[in-house]
């Protein structure tokens, strides 16, 4: 029986009326016996609710916990229970030129990607929502299609395109690849805000003397900012963690952190991988936090 199933009325009340006293007795008895039973059921439901939630949280956080243990444990292999705490893998990570180069390069690519994806995705969302474009739905489908396509194919296709164009594997090519797969996030989050946008706010601004351009910067942009920003954060994280698209597009000497980690994994499997993961998790977290604090993720806007 599900924990919150409605209680069926007790059978006792529907039968022929017995003597008044005995009915009252039974009512009392039944009320006493029923209430704790219902309470127990609610408590059981709550326990189940908590258990499921905790289980989901553990499932989400356990991999991160394992990575952290791996990063701090001094032995060069995953060992449980850990034999101690050491920062040797962090030292190794920060001392390794390849890793440092990859880390900074990844940040660079992620920042450029975020800028491009936010600008292009934001504009695309505006055009789709407002532009009165013929075939806006098709445009939207095309904008979102990189999400449907396996990213490895996107990477391969871009790689082949660059080879055909004979441009090698430049930084802008990698950024373009990342932008391609991050634009859908910006488009989606911006469109969500634009869908709830009250067009009369823009009319009010126009009526008060704001030119279309000023209306955009004074009213539209501040109000869609939460959506754009949420998309930008997605774009940053997706780019920073991007593996399949980068796989084909990184050029010798300019490899992103996930690619470097993957190649390192093939030859050395020690705590440096864990340390690198911890550092990149923290970095991604810090960037999100910084964006939130500076540009303001928490919207006061209730549209």
């Amino acid at each position, binding site marked *: 029986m599900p924990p919150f199933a409605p209680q069926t009325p007790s059978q006792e009340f529907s039968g022929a009326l017995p003597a008044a006293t005995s009915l009252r007795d039974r009512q009392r008895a039944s009320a006493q016996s029923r209430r704790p039973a219902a309470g127990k059921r609610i408590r059981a439901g709550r326990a189940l609710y908590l258990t499921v939630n905790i289980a989901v949280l553990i499932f989400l956080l356990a991999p991160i916990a394992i990575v952290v243990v791996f990063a701090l444990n001094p032995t060069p292999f995953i060992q449980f229970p850990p034999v101690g705490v050491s920062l040797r893998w962090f030292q190794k990570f920060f001392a390794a030129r390849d890793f440092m180069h990859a880390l900074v390069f990844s940040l660079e690519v992620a920042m450029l990607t975020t800028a491009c994806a936010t600008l292009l995705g934001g504009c695309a969302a505006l055009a789709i929502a407002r532009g009165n474009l013929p075939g806006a739905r098709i445009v939207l489908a095309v904008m979102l299609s990189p999400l449907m396509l396996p990213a490895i194919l996107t990477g391969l296709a871009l790689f082949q395109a660059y080879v055909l164009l004979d441009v090698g594997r430049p930084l802008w090519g990698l950024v373009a690849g990342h932008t391609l797969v991050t634009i859908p996030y910006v488009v989606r989050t911006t469109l969500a805000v634009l869908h709830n946008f009250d067009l009369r706010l823009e009319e009010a*601004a126009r*009526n*008060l003397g704001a030119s279309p351009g000023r209306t955009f910067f004074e009213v539209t942009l501040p109000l869609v900012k939460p959506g754009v920003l949420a998309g930008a954060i997605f774009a940053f994280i997706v780019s920073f963690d991007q593996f399949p698209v980068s796989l084909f597009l990184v050029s010798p000497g300019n490899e992103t952190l996930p690619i470097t980690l993957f190649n390192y994994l093939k030859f050395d499997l020690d705590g440096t991988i864990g340390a690198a993961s911890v550092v990149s998790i923290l970095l991604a977290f810090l960037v999100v936090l910084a964006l939130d604090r500076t540009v303001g993720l928490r919207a006061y806007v209730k549209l």
Partner: protein
Amino acid sequence: MSASIEIAGVSKIYDGGVRAVDTIEIDIRQGEFFSLLGPSGCGKTTTLRIIAGFESPSDGAIRIDGADITHVPAHKRDMGMVFQNYALFPHRTVAENVAFGLRMRGIDKQAIAAKVKAALAMVELSGLEDRRPAQLSGGQQQRVALARAIVIEPRVLLCDEPLGALDKKLRQQMQFELKQLQKTLGLTLVFVTHDQEEALAMSDRIAVMNCGRVEQIGTPVEIYDQPLTRFVADFIGDTNIFRGERVTSDAGPALAAGHGLFLALPASAAGTSLLSVALRPEKISLSSGDTETAAAASGARGTIESTNFLGGAVLYHIALDSGHRVLAQQPNAGAVFVPGRTVKLDWKAADLVVLKD
């Protein structure tokens, strides 16, 4: 400062051929409180949006003080507008909302501050400058919207059902305040509403609209007492409408409404053989049917079906002997006819208004 508006043969046809507004001719005078009244979908809001410049007319022209502004963009029209749900900028404070239009006009900061202060004082919102719209009540938001629109000293103030979201008591208070403000400032005000009582109470003149067309333009009294069309008579207040053939009796022209009911027509009533006439409920006087005076030409006999006690008046639903159902309203003078009672109805032939269909 205030301007006159001329709506000259304006039509708005949407894709698919829907005529939202159909060849409208309205002249709004300077300093006039002018209402566009009609049911939803009648084209009144579209007309207002064409005046504001949010929609461009498919045909016709809009002139302000005689100057054609049909193709002037909205932000250069110098009109204030109060929107149905106020459209306050949620990311700005009350003061910033009110200052917006002034800022767009490049006025210096000190002058803006002074004007904002004065405008907020006018709508009695001093002290709430730093609140955000979401922190205000509906009535307060309404005042902010009003202050934001008038602070720019617009040539015309446009109001799109501005009081629709308020409860009745607050609405009446705001009606009064808005009217006062309009008079004090001498504003030309175009007011869109579907509430006929509101329009009658506030307007200098009203245009009653239906299906994209103007049915009648006139003062509230004209609109109420001399409705031109069946739609206007029906839409404004309660009314009794009779339809039938025009006949000539010994006492003059009359309307044969069927089942033996004849209504004496005013001598002026000319026209075709098939007619509709309107008779306002309060123009009918009821008397006890006991006194057997000879049945006048302009009168009938009926039975009270039900009564609505309105406080100052009583509204009776009466079934005439001829089978017609009519409404009659009497001032509350103490005695109330009870349902089932037979009564005699009298009215003056001159109170019958002949309608265009």
